[in-house]
């Protein structure tokens, strides 16, 4: 199977972490994608022009990281999405929160990258509030949400925070979220996380 990805995307990384965790990473051919110019390339695999996109050996293309992760978990008999209904719902919910944190951070950065008249302080502030509120919720409810065996939600949160560290300046989330900071430092040492850490582009 073939994974269309970008090295920096937290959602691509989430898929790769899951692939490592459930022993399928060796079966995945990684093919980088150019998000700015999807025509004739990435768009052939995913008409939306987004990553991650997993093209299965029979040609079926799966899109959306949560769907790809579920497929990998089923294929690799993984342990990140619980089988029992309530635990499963809680894990998928935590994934949605983690993905939302990543999306909010990306949208803050996207707005910062819009310069001149196209930039809007209000839009940046709106996404920043979403990021802050979600992080505050995780910190205040840390024991209930973050304890226990690692699940897909934890992977999503770790990949989102990894992206913040990699891409953003002036986003010091650790000071106000010490429990999350300690947790992340530990989680980031998992081999699946270490193997998928984004590298700074070559100068």
């Amino acid at each position, binding site marked *: 199977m073939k994974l269309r990805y970008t090295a920096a995307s937290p959602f691509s990384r989430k898929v790769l972490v899951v692939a490592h965790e459930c022993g399928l990473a060796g079966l995945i051919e990684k093919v980088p994608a150019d998000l700015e110019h999807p025509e004739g390339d990435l768009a052939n695999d995913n*008409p939306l022009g987004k990553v991650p996109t997993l093209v299965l050996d029979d040609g079926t293309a799966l899109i959306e990281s949560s769907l790809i992760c579920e497929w990998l978990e089923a294929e690799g008999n993984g342990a990140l999405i619980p089988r029992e209904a309530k635990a499963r719902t809680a894990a998928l919910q935590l994934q949605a929160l983690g993905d939302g944190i990543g999306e909010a951070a990306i949208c803050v950065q996207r707005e910062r990258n819009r310069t001149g008249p196209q930039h809007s302080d209000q839009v940046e502030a709106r996404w920043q509030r979403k990021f802050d509120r979600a992080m505050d919720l995780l910190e205040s409810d840390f024991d209930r949400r973050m304890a226990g065996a690692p699940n897909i939600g934890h992977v999503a949160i770790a990949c989102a925070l990894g992206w913040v560290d990699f891409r953003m300046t002036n986003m010091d989330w650790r000071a106000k979220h010490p429990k999350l900071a300690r947790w992340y430092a530990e989680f980031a040492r998992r081999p699946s996380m270490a193997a998928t850490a984004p590298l700074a582009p070559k100068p």
Partner: protein
Amino acid sequence: MRLRYSPSSPFVRKVSVFAIETGLDAKIERVPTNPMKRADVAGSPNPLGKVPCLETEDGMVLYDSPVILEYLDTLHGGPPLIPREGRARWDTLRRQALADGILDATVLTFVESLRQPERQSRGYLAHLRAAVERAVAALGAEAAALPDPRGRPDVGTIAIGCALGFVDYHFKDFAWRTKYPALGAWYDAFAQRPSMTATVPIDPRTVP
């Protein structure tokens, strides 16, 4: 259960259509929440401020729409609208993801259009429009394989119905029915379902 909703959200519509189709509608109390209003967002149990957001009887707070639909699918007695396993499951969820992607790009287009004209990015709008056109073309190529629009729906067909309705509304100059007549016929039949006619979104600019 309590559903935080906006009458203009196509993602809320997915949940509403699902609830009507499965008979869960009467068990859901609806609380209006405007994701563009700061006070509404601050009062929402979803820190990201998005709708739909479902508060369950046993205290869970669920979002986004795929998580909500998967949960709701365990609550009704009929055949599942998300096949539990195998090829049928992946086909259904793949179609939902494609339709949700169309909705995402269309929502982003609308949000960009709310900026003052000089603050809008033409390049970004063109990028989003191209993604929507390619994704609708992909649905057009798949039209003959879609389940009967008059039969029992699944989350894939519900999402496609909501996506095409939203595209119709926001890209009035995109003549997709002419380009993909089989998809147009499929949608026109699907849109006749009582669950669809009861849930037509209102214009986002008129949400209180």
